[in-house]
């Protein structure tokens, strides 16, 4: 705990959090019902009460680099029980949203990802990239014939020329962001008396991360939620859908480049089964999420929320439909869908560190940090 803390409210920050869906934050009168109601908040310095007053005082330094905002899973129990309708759950989400933008570089890109009017540009970019690179390299065949093989249309070389640098870009952006993020959350924990660890020991931290992973996979925190219990299910479907598809992509990458076997692969192949199951899971999970969000009128849903769910659904749908139209022999449709699918995949990777999906990294790190720092979470 710092001896004396100089409070300098940042009204600009406050207004931004308000704009990101935290418009109720000033209603809080600090009864702490939220911290009591929260099923996953730790006993020592529980959230979100302290985050609520810090937000209403515009104390950016106490929120952006605060691991606790990431420990929150937006169950919504606090929001339901809040006697003032201050919706702490939504405020926490808005703070997270702000934090993602804050840690991402370049800043301009982060801001663009947050704005709906920049969406055509963001999606237009990969479209143009494929067309231009295709024209330069000749790796796009605009009129493939014969059996439907997507590689005939856009070569896997071109695909990987796009996706691999995109993934590397995402990793680099995250790495830079995480470097500051970890330093900040550690400093915040020291200031607030949430930890007794003075320095971060990398090896211990990684061990903590390994301990946390099974919990994330099992959604053990998420399923403690009272109010939004059904969200754990849909989240799990989307989550495992993505993981399944990531594994499938990895295996086929190896199969293609090491064994030189080209797709399309047989539907009897167990890897293909996994791909199909994961794809269906992604589609159903994201559709459920949309349904839940539409039904929950008391919860704020911002552009960033819809953007992520929409992307997940679009990825799943275009992927599955590409396959189905291929099997159905609708060549033109299948190639078109494949093109769109590719655009979304590119968008997923490139915009990942700037979108809500970045929570996958920040929450994991925050949970690992909580585990490392001995915070009982």
């Amino acid at each position: 705990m710092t001896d004396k803390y100089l409070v300098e409210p940042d009204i600009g920050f406050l207004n931004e959090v308000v704009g990101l869906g935290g418009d109720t934050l000033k209603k809080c009168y600090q009864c702490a019902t939220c911290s009591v109601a929260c099923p996953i908040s730790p006993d020592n310095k529980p959230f979100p009460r302290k985050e609520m007053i810090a937000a209403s005082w515009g104390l950016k330094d106490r929120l952006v680099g605060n691991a606790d905002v990431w420990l929150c899973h937006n169950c919504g129990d606090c929001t339901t029980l809040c006697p003032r309708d201050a919706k702490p759950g939504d405020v926490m989400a808005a703070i997270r949203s702000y934090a993602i933008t804050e840690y991402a570089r370049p800043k301009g890109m982060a801001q663009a990802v947050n704005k709906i009017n920049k969406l055509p540009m963001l999606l237009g970019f990969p479209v143009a990239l494929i067309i231009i690179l295709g024209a330069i390299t000749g790796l796009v065949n605009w009129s493939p014939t014969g059996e439907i093989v997507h590689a005939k249309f856009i070569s896997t070389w071109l695909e990987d020329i796009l996706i691999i640098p995109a993934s590397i870009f995402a990793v680099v952006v995250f790495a830079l962001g995480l470097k500051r993020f970890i330093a900040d959350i550690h400093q915040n924990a020291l200031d607030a008396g949430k930890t007794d660890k003075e320095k971060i020991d990398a090896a211990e931290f990684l061990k903590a991360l390994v301990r946390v992973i099974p919990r994330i996979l099992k959604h053990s925190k998420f399923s403690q939620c009272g109010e939004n219990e059904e969200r754990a299910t849909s989240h799990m479907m989307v989550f495992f859908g993505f993981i399944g598809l990531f594994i499938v992509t990895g295996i086929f990458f190896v199969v293609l480049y090491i064994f030189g076997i080209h797709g399309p692969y047989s539907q009897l192949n167990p890897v293909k089964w996994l791909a199909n199951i994961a794809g269906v899971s992604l589609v159903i999970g994201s559709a459920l999420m949309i349904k839940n969000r539409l039904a929950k009128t008391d919860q704020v849903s911002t552009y960033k929320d819809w953007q992520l769910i929409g992307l997940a659904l679009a990825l799943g749908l275009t992927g599955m439909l590409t396959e189905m139209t291929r099997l159905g022999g609708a060549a033109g449709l299948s190639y078109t869908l494949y093109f769109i699918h590719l655009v979304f995949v590119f968008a997923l990777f490139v915009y990942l560190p700037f979108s809500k999906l970045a929570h996958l990294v920040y929450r994991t790190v925050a949970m690992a940090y909580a585990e490392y720092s001995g915070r009982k979470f």
Partner: protein
Amino acid sequence: MDKKFGVYICTGCGIGESIDTAKLCDLAEEEGLTCKTHSMFCGKEGLDLLKSEVEGGVNTLVLAACSRRVNYDIFRFDGCIVDRVNLREGVVWSHPRAQFPALTEEEKEDEDKFDRVQMMAEDYLRMGMARVERIKLPEPYQLDTLNRKILIIGGGVTGMSAAVDAAKAGYEVTIVEKEATLGGYAAKIRKQLPIKDPYETPIPPIVQSCIDAVEQQSRISVRTNAVVARIAGQPGEFTVTFKKPGEKIEFDVPYPLPEEMMVDESGKELDPETLHQRFMEYNEGRRDILTLDPDGEMFGAVILAAGWRPYEPKKDEFAHLGFGQLPDVVTNHKFEEIAAQGKILRPSDGKEARSVVFIQSPDLESDADFDYAGAVTSLVALKQATYVREDFEDGKSFIFYQHMRTPGLNENFYKKVQQDPGIFMTKGKVAAVSKNGDGMMVEAEDTLLGEKLHVKADMVVLATGMVPLTKDEPVVNMAYRQGPAFRDIDLFNGYVDSNFICFPYETQRTGIYAAGAVRRSMTMEECMEDASGAALKAVQCLESVNRGVSVHPRSGDMTFPDFFFQRCTQCKRCTQECPFGAIDDDAKGTPKPNPTRCRRCGTCMGACPERIINFSDYSIDSIGSMVKAVGVPSEDDYTEPPFRILGLVCENDAYPTLDIAGLNRISYSADVRIIPIRCLGSMNVIWIKDALSQGMDGVFLLGCKHGDDYQCHFVKGSELAEIRVKKIGDALASLALEEERVAQFEVAIDDYPKIPKIINDFVEQIEALGPNPFKGF
């Protein structure tokens, strides 16, 4: 009046099943009175029976049925004395046969067996018959000339509102204002708190509309640059002397002698003449209270709306907050003055104050707010916080509070202010304010944001309180023997005393009602509502005086204390003990009662050692005769005679408590006999002596709580009774009786579940002492 008696016994509500009412009738007839029974006197048939009796000449009715606290409107017959013998709640319901079985036929044969419940009913009937024999129909006390004008002291929002309300009700009003113009504090502020829905934003002061309303009323006259020198007389005929502020005149009110001047060198009390002489010397140049100003103006009732002044911190009182040392640390009053003049500028250098810290509580040790603060100071901090925001786009207001009090719909105001992105609030203690370069640094501890923090401030505002003007001086200046001010009972911190939980507006002086910030810190909205209440009380007072009845709390009581002066010893006890200053005394010490000041509690009757003060229907004799009517069986009657214990019970809260116990079938010993009295303050110890000397085994008093959260309707009654009971301990000892035979208990009106324990424990304690040795003499 020639009394013609009739006894009526109701057999309904379970009375007939439990009690042998025929035997009760025999009892009445033995006394030569006619007795009738009916199964439901409160029904049409029963009531018709009573009416025909009254038409037939009966004018003194003993109605043995339910408690007098119910159906009182039904059993009221003009020109008749009615006594209600409480058989239902007091006997049958509180002593169910399941616990107090009736005698079997066999037992009835045995003369040594007795039925406690039947005995109780018979005693109560005898007591009722004894009482009606001793009481008279009251006749109203009428003033020669009743003045209906209302005097309002203070021309602020409260006074003006009260004046308009009273004028609209048809009463002549005079407002006396010490300043040159009407308006008071309300005229000196930038904005005021909201007064109507949606209660969200501060509004321009409404004071001008109040002044306009006053000017439009032809019934209101205004006297500015004037104060009250004295108010003499009593409600309905107050003689008021006005003067200019600061002036010294012969009709300035005299002050009572300090206690040390009331005794001689050896500490003995001086005789009345010397006392009066000293009093006149002490108040040299002033006329005695009984001398009326021939040029005085007559009024019927007074409303005190003197208001408040801003608290002035003593030097170094808030040194840790920089007050007195740093020029930019100011009180909320000073801040309002600055705000009323224009933009918020710092007193030190006239620079704009863009960051202002509002401090609600001064202490690190306690969580108390500033003295004389309240909800208003919380609300004012919210209001002033918005000034900073409206003056400067980047303005910031910080409020550190221990309590944020925004009662009622003011919560909307709080919510609205809270929404302002530039207003920051936290509970917390402010440790220090220090100089920080050009501005200041405020240090706070235990805040909602953490243990210790700093905030930079251009100005710091202390939420100091609103001191009632009555704290500094009496203001009302009553020419009363007990003194010119409302008696300070050390409970209300200088605010005008009134038992504001039960009786807002009431002071301890009948006919003089307090309203507004003189009662407690109030918003203008509250003041205006308070003003209406006080205006209505003044009207109620005038109309009650007009009919010769009591105003409060025994509204409509036509009796008043009657003094038998031939036997008065000028002991002054009645003058001193009257909680309402109703009794003055002359140079010889002879009491001078002021019946319209009186609240009919009977404290004077309880106090009088000569027992010369009585009411027509409530007297030493009437209660004494009831005590004597209680049958006290001795060993001559039964081998093991039952104990007899008298309960003198305050009829304001304790008697209803017993009734509620009965209503809930909560039972207590059947050996007690309850007599309701007006207030424990009216308890004369002669009743206790009578009871014990006729062989009763114990006496208990049941009354209201006293002390800091007193509930006595007459402020001091239960306290005075306790003092008197302590004093009779010696007398008991001289009779070889244990002091424990007399006890006093406190109950609140909702304490009925405690009744059995209180009464039964006392009964057991008496049984342990054994029977009264005087029994049977």
